[in-house]
């Protein structure tokens, strides 16, 4: 369905500097702990309360920025699962962290490669050095998110953003949460109590994807035509809007209009119609091919007088 959207009238007001100022003040009050976790203590803020009661700041702008901030002044790295094979990670490094690294590493900071280290932490409690295995992805210095081809489904993963120094050392800047990717086929694990012969399961599995058809394990869902149903008006599961080629459509309508005494009774083709208060009327008809005989009859309110006018219209489409 083609939905044409109206651009809403929106009053865009410029961000007032007050917003930025508040952000800066917040950053200075040391809202973040070293671990990068948010510390939201109200107490901490009460330090700045007197500052915030400054009349200038109390006048918070009535409108505020219509764009989201590019960063939140935090150290944060998150890892998400896209599917059995792919992960997605995004991160933000706060300026202080960068400065600290610069002062610790000196020139090395500029030479070091920026790397995502992807750890397979399946069935272990990861302590930073006990991963089953890991691999590195070199990334661009200015990247702040990445899709990672993890390569094998059904595993647990953790990612570090770090620097690989020229002597081979790896320095972790940020560490993500741990995620689990799903299997892309049936589990190998069949507990004893519920043991099912493989061939029987294969039949059930195939039936899960279509009666009587044996589906290639793990691939069936990729072949299905069912895409996300989504919300009703945005995407039709029924059929996609066809891209029409060149086309022309022509139709005709006929407007029959007239006027009489306001209290007269009028019929058109025998059917009573309503007059406007001033005695005028307008009728609109789709006009198919052929001849239309349209008797318009007016009878005065006292039924003494009568007039009939009959337009005859013919449409012929070639």
């Amino acid at each position: 369905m083609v939905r044409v959207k109206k651009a809403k009238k929106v009053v865009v007001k410029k961000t007032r500097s007050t917003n930025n100022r508040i952000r800066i003040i917040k950053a200075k009050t040391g809202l973040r702990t070293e671990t990068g976790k948010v510390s939201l203590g109200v107490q901490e803020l009460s330090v700045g309360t007197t500052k915030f009661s400054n009349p200038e700041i109390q006048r918070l702008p009535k409108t505020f920025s219509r764009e989201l901030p590019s960063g939140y002044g935090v150290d944060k790295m998150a890892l998400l699962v896209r599917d059995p094979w792919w992960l997605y990670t995004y991160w933000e490094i706060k300026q202080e962290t960068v400065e600290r690294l610069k002062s610790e590493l000196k020139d090395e900071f500029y030479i070091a490669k920026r790397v995502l280290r992807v750890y397979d932490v399946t069935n272990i409690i990861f302590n930073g050095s006990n991963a089953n295995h890991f691999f590195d992805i070199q990334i661009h210095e200015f990247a702040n998110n990445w899709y990672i081809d993890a390569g094998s489904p059904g595993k647990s993963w953790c990612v570090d953003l770090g620097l690989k120094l020229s002597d081979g050392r790896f320095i972790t800047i940020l560490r993500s949460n741990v995620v689990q990717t799903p299997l892309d086929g049936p589990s190998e694990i069949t507990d004893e109590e519920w043991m099912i012969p493989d061939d029987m399961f294969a039949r059930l599995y195939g039936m899960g994807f279509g009666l009587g058809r044996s589906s290639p394990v793990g691939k069936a869902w990729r072949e299905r035509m069912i895409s996300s149903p989504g919300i009703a008006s945005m995407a039709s599961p029924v059929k996609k809007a066809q891209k029409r080629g060149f086309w022309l459509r022509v139709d005709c309508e006929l407007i029959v209009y007239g006027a009489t005494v306001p209290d007269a009774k009028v019929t058109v083709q025998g059917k009573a119609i309503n007059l406007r208060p001033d005695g005028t009327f307008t009728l609109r008809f789709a006009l198919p091919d052929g001849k239309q005989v349209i008797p318009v009859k007016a009878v005065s309110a006292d039924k003494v007088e009568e007039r009939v006018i009959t337009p005859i219209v013919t449409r012929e489409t070639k």
Partner: protein
Amino acid sequence: MHKGYLCLVLHGHLPYVRHPEHEDFLEEDWLYEAITETYVPLIMVFERLASDRIDFRLTMTLSPTLISMLGDPLLQERYLKHINRLIELAHREIERTRWQPEFHHLALMYLSEFSKARDTFVRYNRNLVNAFKNFQDLGKLEIITCGATHGYFPLMDVHRESVRAQVKVAVSHYESVFGRKPKGIWLPECGYYPGQDGILKEAGIRYFFSDSHGVLHGTPRPKYGVFAPVYCKGTGVACFARDLESSKQVWSSIEGYPGDYNYREFYRDIGFDLEYDYIRPYIHPDGVRINTGIKYYRITGSGNNKEAYVPHWAQSKAAEQAGNFMFNRQKQAAYLYDFMQKKPIIVSPYDAELFGHWWYEGPMWLEFLIRKIACDQDELRLITPSEYLEENPRNQVITPSMSSWGWKGYSEMWLQGSNDWIYRHLHIASEKMTGLAKSYSEVNGLTKRALNQALRELLLAQSSDWAFILGTGTHTEYALRRTKDHLLRFNRLYEELNSNSIDEAWLADIEYKDNIFPGIDYRLHQ
């Protein structure tokens, strides 16, 4: 002989689209169209079945956003205006098509439908939730809940507190509307991530649905595939998996029922077809042509040439397809019964809005199906998940696999180049909200209002619908605006709370605009 169960599930959801600040707002039409074309026709199906004493069981999600919109006085008032305008248009169409018999009777049909929609709407005191509740109270309908704003849970797992808030706000909202707890939940987009069932358990929810591979790829292997529910390891929450075969018969763009050439063509609406000055009062006030709901053509074929819709052809097709669907399920159940030595449950979930809105004949098909199952056979029985669990309490324990019913079966629809950027903003807001909920345990007045509003804004920003629209890449402007507006409002509330400088006038303004969940408790985000 009774050999198996069929569990039909209709997932009713629309994102919260309510704009009191504008006289006329295009996206609100999503609700009005769904009322006229889906919810009222479904209610009328239920009413006819009940008055004919046809027993039935149907499971239906009413998402908290949908319930909220259906119960909102402003939207109710606007719907009446909307349907009155449509009725006026139908009257004009009856007159205009007087010399076109093939369309004239359709104009009469629309007048009758629109009038019934208005009558039904008014009869249930303008709140259709009352109708659904009646059928739940009669034991025919099992209404389940959903995420509070249909947030997509797998991509929220980094901050599980948000999943908890989505679930708990939904459950408490459900209780306030239906006077009891929901037995089940439709996970938004069928999105499941292992471990999140713990939150469902906390909320007293007994079951949820997953896509087929959620159970088939679970660990250990499910003995009965998707044809029996499983209990999640560690929590005992039941998971019912979708049967793809029956889904495909209805959904599929190629072999699915709705594509039958006798059915009504969705894409030929008089809002686009008719002469501009005539249709102008019934399209968008800006003059942009939109769908009116009056459509005169049948699908006809794959080409552009469309012929007039013939209702009785469509009706007999719907009856035939309902018979076909039932026959296939009977065959499937009988086969599975022999194979499993146990009665299978075939779970067939669909978007409710498919019925009527996209697939005009959908409600009719559903009615035929239910009548046939009740009267024409005894192999299949309609059942709700909670009834099934009562009859079959012993089930296998597994850990289902992460999955969704979206494109490619996992999270890619909501996590791709066009929408992945939203998560850094959403997640930090979740993190902040958890902090707020922890730091403010007992507050009153303005602070409490600001905290509650902060949770409303966060929830509204989390609707999977925005990411979905951004992912489709067309008409993304509104989804982008909504994502940003709610996050910006959240961020500002957060700053104002932290600096003890809540701007009451502004707060009142966003409370008025984003008025969902009046009884919300910010402490649920923990």
